[in-house]
């Protein structure tokens, strides 16, 4: 740590393979939503965030909130790879009594900043954390990952109006714009376009990137704060199910669970060899 782009890409392949395996073993859905944001998670935890897994609650650490809590298995896999807890714990995912539910509970593992799952909560919490940095005169940054469907929630826009008013330039939002929500095209369910313009109009320093291009993700995450005096909002154009051809942009994978054969196909595709289920 920190890693080069090729190393981050290799890590993303490893996490994708693990997420698919966890979905099968844990019989848990939302795989497409995890695969779309794995490049964001990897870039954050293996490069952008100023964190120390051995001192996971240091007051001046950067905070990361996965507000789209349904992608939590991918986050668990990333935290384990980053050394926040033993990889053995991943094997207990979503089994009776495990600390790792489908969507995270508070402090379920070191490094997990907030319980999410109900959409529209992560950004207000992140705003509070960013404001606390100012009150405490600390220099940490707060990174929040939202889903496009999540931006249906009014609380997202309450927070989006408040953060620029306080000039919270230590706050970074990245929207995993994978173009789908649970049961439909996100642009058809709600009028979210022009998406970046909305954030810009609310007073955010706004960027649009390919959120599955590791270099672009890394570059945009290196910009906090970007000198504008504003919080940053990134519209990360992604593909739901990214990396697995038979899952890409197919919303059935919001709920479908992969079979053992499909998990092996993905492991082969990701160069991870034979899977143990």
């Amino acid at each position, binding site marked *: 740590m920190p890693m080069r782009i090729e190393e981050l890409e290799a890590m993303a392949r490893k996490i994708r393979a693990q997420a698919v395996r966890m979905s099968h073993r844990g019989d848990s859905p939302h795989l497409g939503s995890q695969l779309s944001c794995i490049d964001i998670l990897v870039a954050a935890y293996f490069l952008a965030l100023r964190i120390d897994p051995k001192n996971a609650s240091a007051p001046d650490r950067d905070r990361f909130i996965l507000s789209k809590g349904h992608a939590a298995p991918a986050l668990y896999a990333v935290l384990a790879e980053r050394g926040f807890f033993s990889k053995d714990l991943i094997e207990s995912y979503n089994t009776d009594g495990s600390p790792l539910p489908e969507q995270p509970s508070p402090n379920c593992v070191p490094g997990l900043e907030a319980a999410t799952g*109900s959409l529209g909560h992560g950004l207000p919490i992140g705003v509070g954390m960013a404001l606390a940095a100012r009150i405490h005169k600390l220099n940490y940054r707060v990174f929040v990952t939202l889903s496009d469907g999540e931006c249906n929630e009014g609380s997202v826009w309450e927070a989006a109006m408040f953060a620029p008013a306080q000039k919270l330039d230590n706050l970074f939002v990245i929207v995993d714009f994978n173009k789908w929500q649970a049961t439909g095209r996100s642009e058809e369910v709600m009028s979210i376009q022009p998406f970046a313009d909305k954030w810009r109009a609310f007073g955010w320093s706004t960027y649009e990137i390919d959120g599955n291009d590791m270099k672009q993700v890394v570059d945009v995450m290196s910009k906090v704060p970007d000198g504008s005096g504003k919080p940053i909002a990134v519209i990360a154009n992604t593909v739901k199910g990214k990396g697995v051809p038979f899952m890409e942009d197919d919303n059935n994978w919001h709920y479908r669970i992969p079979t053992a054969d499909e998990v092996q196909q993905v492991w082969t595709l990701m160069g991870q060899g034979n899977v143990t289920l």
Partner: protein
Amino acid sequence: MRDAFAREITRLADEDPRVVLLSGDIGNRMFNTFKDRHPDRFYNCGVAEANMMGMAAGLAMCGLRPVLYTIVPFLTTRCLEQIRVDACYHHQPLTIVGVGGGLSYASLGATHHSCEDIAFLRMLPGMSVVCPGDAMEVTGAIRAAVAHDGPVYVRLGKKGEPVVHPAVPAFTIGKSIRLREGSDVALLSTGNLLPLSIEVADKLTATGVSVGLESFHTVKPLDEECLNDLFTRCRVVATIEEHSRLGGLGGAVAEWLSEQPAARARLLRFGTADRFLHEAGSQEHARKQYGLTTETLVDSIRTALR
């Protein structure tokens, strides 16, 4: 009550650098002293309660002690899910201070009435629910709430209510304050009906009834020791609240009572009925519509004693 809150929260902020005050775009001049002394710890969060509640949780997760202030229905019902998930599930030390409890803002219409908030909030795991009876209790309650390591809801009336206590009483969350001893009837008053409860006690006493009176300010956790004592000794225990008879103090005591094999006293629950008010009127008028008057309470209690 609200001026007592403004004074005490300013003092607490002077003493404790963790105290941060969040307002939902009300009480502007009230907090002038606070803002002058602690400009970096006062935030007008606008008319956006969901964000304010989530933000408060974020502040608390970073070691601060946020205190949130706006009108009861908007601070409780409007953002109930934020209270549930961000404050309670994370068990963060938020002091949620609602002004205009019950029928305090009667003339603003039923959108501003709050006769369900106690019920909603006391269902939430880890939440304490505190309804001070006068300005002195507000002072004690705010101090206790900010010191408490978990979420606390403090329900205020408005301003200018009669002051009952000569000084700030010893205040512990979950410990009722005994104002009068009595053996026939015990009145359990929570929140802003304390002055009315005193009138009821006076009138009953004048008819020769032995009346005890509690400022039963904490609805959750229930002071079971106090309840045990009163239900064992008295013939009638009456709960009195500017809140629905469903789910408030009366509801909480009824739940408790249903599991007490040795209870002697009969429970009477005084509160608002299961309907909205549609007509204009003062707090006094609104109370009358719900039968929350000294005369009605005295008559009902005397009937129960016969």
